[in-house]
């Protein structure tokens, strides 16, 4: 550096301190809440999973028995695989149902499109249990569908009564609004003119969808996949109300450890397993996102 170069020392001015203070004031409470309400319970579950329960009491002697039981007992493996398969199937069905609905609302909903999306969420106004109970009322042996069929002399549909299919339909019903919302939020920011460009350049509608629409809305779609898959993987209530014995899920078993059997430590280990499975799912889906290839960082020229 030459002798004449002016050196400007970095210094902390009053303004710097003011900005730092303002930032702490704004971000502080939220960060504190996340720390206390989300991370601490998670941490405690990890800790409990290495402890031992006996007659509804937790003992802090560190061991790996809970994991040994969970991985060793075939029942838990069945529960887990069942939950995973169910979550996968439900997610895919939600995807297939939600895409056209979200696309249609975003493209043709006009001034009512926000209202339409909110309408999809209307069932949320009532709470999960009530919605599942309503489905039970629809599918069950004395439910609306089968009662009507019996009345007109047709045998009731067996597969709707306390079967994995019924539980699956229930889960799709519960989670499809999340998928629609995620995809909708993506599609309203999609520049439909790009499809005209694709068509002029020789792409048929289906090809244009695959080349342009799908990749440019993949982030929103991936978020939809995550927000449906993860809760479905842990789901217990739906299977319990609608699924019958064939649908007993990992989540149901987990709930049992904290309830009837009182084996909190094993339950915690199952919770940890669920947490890491979800993490793996998020990472797998996340890895499919290439920011450069999503058009997300690109300024979409309007």
């Amino acid at each position, binding site marked *: 550096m030459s002798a004449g170069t002016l050196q400007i020392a970095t210094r902390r001015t009053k303004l710097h301190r003011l900005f730092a203070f303002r930032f702490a004031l704004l971000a502080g409470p939220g960060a504190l809440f996340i720390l206390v309400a989300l991370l601490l319970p998670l941490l405690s579950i990890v800790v409990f999973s290495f402890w031992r329960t006996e007659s509804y009491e937790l003992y802090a002697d560190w061991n790996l028995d809970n994991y040994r039981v969970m991985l060793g007992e075939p029942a838990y493996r069945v529960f887990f695989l069942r939950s995973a398969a169910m979550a996968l199937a439900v997610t895919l069905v939600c995807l297939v149902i939600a895409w056209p609905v979200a696309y249609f609302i975003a493209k043709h909903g006009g001034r009512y499109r926000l209202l339409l999306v909110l309408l999809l969420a209307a069932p949320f106004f009532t709470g999960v249990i009530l919605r599942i109970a309503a489905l039970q009322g629809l599918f069950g042996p004395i439910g609306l569908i089968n009662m009507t069929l019996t009345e007109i002399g047709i045998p009731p549909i067996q597969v709707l009564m306390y079967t994995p299919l019924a539980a699956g339909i229930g889960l799709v019903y519960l989670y499809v609004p999340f998928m629609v919302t995620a995809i909708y939020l993506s599609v309203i920011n999609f520049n439909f003119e790009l499809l*005209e460009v694709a068509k002029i350049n020789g792409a048929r509608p289906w090809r244009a969808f695959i080349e342009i629409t799908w990749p440019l809305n993949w982030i929103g779609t991936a978020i939809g996949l995550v927000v449906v898959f993860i809760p479905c993987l842990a789901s217990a209530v739906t299977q319990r109300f609608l699924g019958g014995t064939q649908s007993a899920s990992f989540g149901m078993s987990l709930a049992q450890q904290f309830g009837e059997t009182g084996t909190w430590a094993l339950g915690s280990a199952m919770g940890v397993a669920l947490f890491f499975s979800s993490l793996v799912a998020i990472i797998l889906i996340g890895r499919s996102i290439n920011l*450069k290839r*999503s*058009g997300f960082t*690109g300024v979409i*020229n309007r």
Partner: protein
Amino acid sequence: MPNAILKLESVGKRFGPITAVDGIDLAIERGEFFTLLGPSGSGKTTLLRIIAGLEPPDSGRVLIAGRDVTELPPYGRNIGMVFQNFLLFPHKTVAENIVFPLRMQRVDKPKRDERLAWIIRLMHLDGLEGRYPNELSGGQQQRVALARGLIAQPELLLLDEPLANLDRELRSEMEVEIRRYQKELRIPFIYVTHNQEEALTMSDRIAVMRNGKFEQVGAKVEIYTNPASAFVASFVGHANRLEGKLVELKGDVGRMEWLGRSILVPSPGPLSSGARVQLSIKYEDLEIAPAGANGTLLQGRNQLPGRLRDIIFKGQTANYIVTIADGVEIIASATPRALSLKPEEAVVVHWPAAGGACFPA
């Protein structure tokens, strides 16, 4: 024109109560640079979208290379198109954007690469193949859009105000570039713009559009020097508009009364004396001289004495703003070095008798 690449036969389009395109007939030949020039709302973009197949016409036929494509979707028409806002695919690289049309036509990879290398060289895009659109400047983006539109050697290329989003310097550079591509590739270009300078720089022929109709179609020099209507005269080039009363009409020459002065004008058509007429005279057709200049110089010419208000220096030329009467100004453009006039000087503006273009007002 038997060899027309594009043929429009009484094409019409309405949007509700508005007639956007009103019975347009047009034929465009191979190798022609054709411009649709008009103000916004004149229907030029709608007409372009009808040609592209993005908008179905309500009436008439569209023929490309002799084939009736009126009912065909855009992907059956083999055309290229370049848009004002570039519309590159943001998730594809420059190379992927450019070869997109070839991939859609199932051209094999070696052939695609060969075409890509050719067009990259033509458009000076070397080294940018792997970039994403958001990593390019506006001019580069527009060149990529042009490359994408041209790589498949379409029957014709449609350009919808492609330079409107570029800054002035880049625009004039691209005007020359685009015309060069057109002349090199001999693909007919149909260029939509509201910018008359762009139209004049690039086109072979221009159609001036207004309210969904062609006001005038012709070679650009013809449009410029011989406007068919008052609208064309005011829209193409920079012209003074003098509106007055026709007092006499003798053959090709009329006499117009304007602010108590008598001006010789070209015939505005069969009008009876007393009719309101409008003279349109381009800035550069006016000459300016100091008051009391040599009388023989002004002999037989239209003359308007006035006071020079200001000189707007533009480089090659300057605009001389002359106050003729209270609140009435006319503008003459001239080479600034040729004149040593000062503002507030008394001057006389003059031009050949019966110069300019005259229309019923």
